């Protein structure tokens, strides 16, 4: 009897194995598709009610292979659901309406696919509020997979994003948003880039083979949990980049993530901010404050498991932006599991190793200024520079279930006098900071080139010409009205920090 049971069990395991294998590899692609997983108590249907996106109150519009998603968006009214059926769609979808849901319909493993054929810049841009984007495969774009431009209350989930250029999922300057269960790979800057956002949950995503896996930049109240970040140059990052209009990055919880083997050679554009990330970086905290790191598995990252730095050590020039405070303050390192990090660190870290007589690089390294940081039981890790870290008062972050708000927030101000500023925040500052190079030339350089010539910018950004071999192409902004382009050009020429 016992033997029979055992045999049955083995057969069952074998069958499950074959089934899973087919599920993952049976689609003629090396890249596994996202499989919705509900392994968190809070990840039940209805958990994003507070975001408001995905609440369908209007009609359902169906898009079938051979027709255009953008046309459907044009026809849609707020509250409508656009269902996209399997097929290949070569287009850029721009959503400037509120409460629009884009939902892919996956039929027998066939995904609706947006394919930019390496000609188009963006797959999906939205400036509306309450936008939902889910169940889409997005590939071969040059700029962004999904970019939010100052849209609030967004949900981006269960998308499969492969090689979409500079950024994969990039909600810019949005409040109250959820990014979950996406899989992203092949992104030359940040796969998931939370830029200048407030109240965002990033969870259950898998990011691999990117320069930066998940980047929380100049954002506040972010919860990053249950993500799998592996084989990037850097796994999970929290930055304050100087020269952006939002001058703080704080209150970020990074917990329950698996950060493994982020040793991919940096393939970011030379001179861009992320191009300076050393390969082998598990987590990187730079000039961000009130960061809590808890219950992560951080292992096999060859430079260092967790790097905590200020601008000085990171070599970031912030002289032109004194408002961006350069130190990482109040970093809280709770229980984490770390092993096998630091097998092949960069020269700067090796120098520190020599002074410590250590043959291996660190699990955790903290360099530069910063106050109020703490760590629980550091003796279990190989650490450099944590001498000033106190013992933490906090033991866990259990009290924080989510950073999403319990009801949707109002849209950002859109009065015409604000249009220039909003457009800069929501669109341009994703690549153009004031004084440092993120991706494109800094704003102060643009000001020098276009002094008293706003019209020159208006014309150029509608039909940009690629002039710099070492920079990604500037994507055309001709989906913005001339009036908007004029407003943003004038705004960009007027800013001083």
């Amino acid at each position: 009897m016992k033997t029979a049971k055992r045999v049955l069990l083995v057969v069952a395991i074998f069958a499950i194995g074959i089934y899973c294998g087919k599920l993952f590899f049976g689609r003629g692609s090396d890249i596994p598709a996202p499989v919705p997983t509900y392994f968190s108590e809070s990840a039940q249907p209805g958990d994003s009610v507070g975001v408001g996106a995905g609440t369908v109150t209007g009609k359902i519009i169906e898009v079938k292979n051979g027709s255009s998603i953008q046309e459907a968006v044009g026809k849609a009214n707020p509250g409508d659901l656009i269902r996209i059926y399997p097929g290949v769609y070569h287009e850029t979808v721009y959503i400037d309406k509120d409460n629009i849901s884009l939902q892919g319909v996956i039929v027998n493993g066939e995904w609706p696919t947006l394919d930019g054929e390496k000609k188009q810049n963006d797959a999906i841009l939205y400036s509306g509020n309450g936008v939902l984007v889910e169940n889409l495969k997005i590939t071969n774009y040059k700029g962004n997979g999904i970019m939010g431009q100052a849209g609030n209350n967004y949900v981006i989930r269960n998308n499969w994003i492969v090689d979409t250029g500079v950024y994969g999922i990039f909600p810019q300057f949005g409040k109250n948003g959820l990014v979950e269960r996406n899989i992203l790979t092949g992104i030359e800057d940040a796969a998931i880039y939370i830029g200048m956002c407030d109240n965002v949950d990033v969870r259950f995503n898998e990011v691999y083979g990117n320069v930066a896996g998940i980047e929380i930049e100049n954002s506040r109240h972010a919860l990053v949990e249950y993500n799998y970040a592996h084989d990037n140059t850097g796994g999970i990052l929290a930055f304050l980049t100087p020269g952006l209009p939002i001058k703080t990055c704080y209150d970020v919880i990074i917990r329950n993530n698996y950060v493994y083997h982020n040793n991919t050679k940096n393939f970011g554009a030379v001179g861009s901010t992320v191009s300076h990330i050393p390969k082998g970086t598990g987590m990187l905290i730079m000039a961000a404050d009130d960061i809590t790191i808890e219950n992560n598995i951080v292992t096999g990252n060859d430079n260092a498991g967790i790097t905590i730095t200020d601008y000085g050590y990171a070599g970031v020039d912030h002289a032109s932006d004194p408002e961006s405070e350069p130190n990482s303050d109040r970093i809280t390192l709770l229980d984490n599991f770390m092993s096998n990090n630091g097998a092949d660190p960069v020269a700067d870290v090796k120098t520190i190793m020599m002074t410590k007589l250590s043959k291996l690089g660190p699990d955790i390294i903290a360099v530069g200024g910063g106050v109020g940081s703490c760590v629980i039981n550091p003796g279990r890790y190989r650490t450099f520079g944590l001498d000033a870290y106190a013992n933490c008062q906090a033991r866990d972050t259990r009290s924080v279930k989510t950073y999403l708000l319990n009801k949707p927030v109002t849209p950002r101000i859109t009065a015409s006098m604000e249009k220039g500023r909003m457009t800069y925040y929501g669109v341009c500052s994703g690549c153009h900071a004031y004084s440092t190079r993120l991706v494109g030339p800094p704003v102060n350089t643009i000001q020098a080139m276009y002094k008293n010539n706003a019209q020159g910018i208006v014309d150029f950004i509608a039909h940009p010409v690629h002039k710099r071999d070492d920079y990604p192409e500037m994507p055309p902004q001709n989906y913005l009205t001339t009036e908007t382009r004029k407003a943003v050009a004038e705004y960009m020429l007027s800013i001083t920090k």
Partner: protein
Amino acid sequence: MAGRYCFFYLVLVLVFWGCSSKESHKDIPQQAVAQPPQGDPQVGMALYATCKACHGDAAQGNKKFKAPALVNTDGWYLYRQLINFHNGVRGGLPADTLGFQMAAMAKTLKDSVAVTHVVAYIKTLPQVVLPPIIDGEIKKGERAYQSVCGACHGPGARGNEKMNAPRLNGLDDWYLKSQIAKFKNGTRGAHPADTYGAQMVPMAALLVDDRAVNDVIAYIRSTTQPQE
């Protein structure tokens, strides 16, 4: 058909420039400054005699006279600056002593065609490696270069003609420093017709102090070293 167009182009080029070159141009020059035509190095060699006294017989420069090396600079940029000197767009201010001298010398070249000949001659001379004079921190300078200069002057300070930005990595370091100082103190880039010089004025101001300038220059110079 194609042959007829080629012929048409050639005629136009000849009409516009009275040029003896047999090479056909892709574009008809619209503006003297933007599109230097081909010059004749033989004619240029004779005209260069005037320049030799300061810039040296091989245009290698001479620090004693504060005359920079010219051989490492792109022809289109040499052309533009000679025209600027010629027209008083550069070196027009007496406060800019050296520029003022250079403007006087440039005026001895009779017209833009003569300028093209001189440039053509200089471009036949071999490039030189220049001695390091200024000390700075390359690593710091690299970051500053990338955030301040690189958008126009390109990777490795090699210049970018599309941005109208000259190559910097073959210039004397002391000369780079003196020009940044001039952009900062208003003796260069102030003329209303000096569009690109005017762009340099706010950019140079971003290198806040002597040290920042030295670091950037050290980086620019390091890019001329052979890569490992």
